[in-house]
């Protein structure tokens, strides 16, 4: 699975023998925004876990749609509409390939990971979770993989159980096994932690959940941009991600669900496009995925996402992951040499996310000063208050790397931290 691919390219950074070595210099020109300056300085964009930048190919695909392809889908007999429908459905097939789902009917377009989780909690959860049932989450979850389950638990009288983490930010798997029991209906876990970077052993966790008779949801918002994903290898029942974190536009995301489960789920929202026949007495619903796509969808978003997946595939996620791991090592080495800096989250399996605190400055002040140096990082709780509580800190500063980041970006961050020291040290 994906995790092992990353591991094999870690360390000395020997590239895979078949693919040529990746250099960000070859592709930085594809990203218009990376050519900008911030406060008169070169922009070092290190907030990729919040959202990624967009290559020209994605921007062009969206522009092309509105310039020459725009029509509503699934309703016209004229050429433009039929073409738009075909392009939209081709985007669905593109997503299927990208995550290796069995059938494109298992791919539902949604607004993002958040909406995908809400859809599952409302539709599947509403139909299947009863009083006294249990749902297992982890301490590492983003609020979007906590709150919908909390809302469901409240409605259904169900109980949430939480897998704890150890001091380096890894899930305690023995505790997880103890939490699994015949009342467990669902295990919903993040693949990669956006706050700490921890890569969770989802394949193994899914196997354990299935053995206990529970379904599984994997939040792939942070894994899809960094690791090759194979939902059949992971064997999860639901997989969700957002387009904007993988070089696609905002407002488009994906819910993957195993087909029999998806077909059995009741609709999420009602409206046009999700029906077969409507009378005032009764409506029959279209089969999935249309059943879950009420109303005019984000057509240009779907095309933009397909263009982004093409772009990423063109480079190769193996090469992207390998390069990011090298850059992560470089950054961690440099940052550990900054006096008073402590990295929060040092899991053995980690994506290119570095959360840190400084002994002498609050993360929010760090963020403001770095901004003045052209360095964009995120500060705060990263929508993961339970993680912050676990470490007894209110917030961290977080640098999250993408394949278009360079050592120069990291050096600019480190230099910026010198400035912080100058002001606060």
């Amino acid at each position, binding site marked *: 699975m994906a995790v092992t691919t990353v591991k094999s390219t870690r360390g000395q950074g020997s590239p895979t023998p078949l693919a040529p070595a990746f250099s960000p210099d070859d592709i930085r020109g594809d990203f218009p925004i990376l050519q900008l300056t911030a406060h008169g300085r070169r922009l070092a964009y290190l907030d990729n876990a919040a959202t990624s930048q967009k290559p020209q190919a994605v921007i062009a695909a969206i522009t092309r749609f509105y310039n020459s392809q725009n029509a509503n889908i699934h309703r016209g007999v004229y050429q433009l509409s039929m073409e738009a429908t075909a392009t939209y459905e081709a985007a669905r097939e593109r997503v299927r390939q990208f995550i290796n789902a069995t059938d494109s009917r298992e791919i539902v377009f949604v607004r993002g990971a958040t909406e995908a989780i809400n859809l599952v909690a409302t539709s599947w959860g509403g139909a299947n979770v009863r009083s006294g049932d249990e749902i297992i989450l982890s301490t590492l979850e983003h609020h979007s993989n906590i709150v919908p389950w909390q809302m469901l638990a409240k409605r259904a009288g169900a109980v949430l159980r939480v897998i704890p983490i150890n001091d380096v930010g890894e899930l305690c798997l023995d505790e997880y096994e103890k939490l699994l029991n015949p009342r467990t209906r669902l295990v919903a876990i993040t693949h990669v932690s956006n706050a700490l970077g921890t890569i969770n052993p989802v394949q193994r966790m899914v196997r354990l959940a299935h053995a206990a008779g529970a379904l599984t949801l994997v939040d792939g918002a942070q894994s899809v941009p960094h690791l090759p994903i194979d939902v059949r290898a992971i064997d999860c029942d639901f997989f969700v991600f957002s387009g904007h974190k993988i070089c696609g536009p905002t407002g488009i995301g994906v819910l993957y669900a195993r087909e029999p489960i998806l077909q059995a789920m009741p609709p999420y929202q009602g409206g046009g496009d999700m029906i077969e026949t409507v009378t005032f007495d009764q409506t029959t619903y279209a089969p999935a995925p249309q059943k879950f796509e009420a109303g005019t969808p984000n057509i240009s978003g779907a095309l933009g996402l397909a263009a982004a997946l093409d772009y990423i595939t063109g480079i190769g996620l193996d090469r992207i992951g390998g390069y990011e791991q090298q850059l992560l090592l470089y950054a961690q080495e440099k940052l550990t040499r900054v006096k008073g800096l402590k990295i929060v989250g040092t899991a053995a399996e980690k994506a290119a996310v570095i959360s840190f605190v400084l002994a002498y400055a609050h993360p929010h002040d760090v963020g*403001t000063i770095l901004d003045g140096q052209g360095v964009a990082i995120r500060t705060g709780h990263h929508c993961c208050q339970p993680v912050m509580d676990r470490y007894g800190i209110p917030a961290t500063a977080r640098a999250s790397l993408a394949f278009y980041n360079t050592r120069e970006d990291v050096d600019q961050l480190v230099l910026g931290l010198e400035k912080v020291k100058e002001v606060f040290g």
Partner: protein
Amino acid sequence: MSDLRELYQEVILDHAKKPRNFHTMPDSAHAADGHNPLCGDRLRVFVRVENGVIEDVSFTGSGCAISTASASMMTEALNGKSLADAQAIFESFHNLLTTGNHADKDEELLGKLAVFGGVREFPVRVKCATLAWHTLQAALQGSAAPVKTE
């Protein structure tokens, strides 16, 4: 960089590192909690009022440099002030941070607090600077619900 120096003035850094009146008040008549979810700042403000005059004001908690310094300097500015004066100072302070318009009367009222003028250039930080003040208001109104700046 010039904006940054405006923001992190020496006085502000000094108060952030060594906050004044940084203690609880066990017998205090009023206390309230303030929380800024954006940066995770949490303050508790204590205030003792007698005959319409602020006899003592203090705070505890943790936050960024701006919110800590603002709380610290607020306590210094308000000790011994009447409630009406305190309100007038807060209004001037708020104007300073948001509109930048201030008349001579504001300058007089603000005194040292004028060093927070630089915050105006950093709109996301305005909430840090006003957290202590909103919390104080809640304490004075005896509000039980924690104050949130969002």
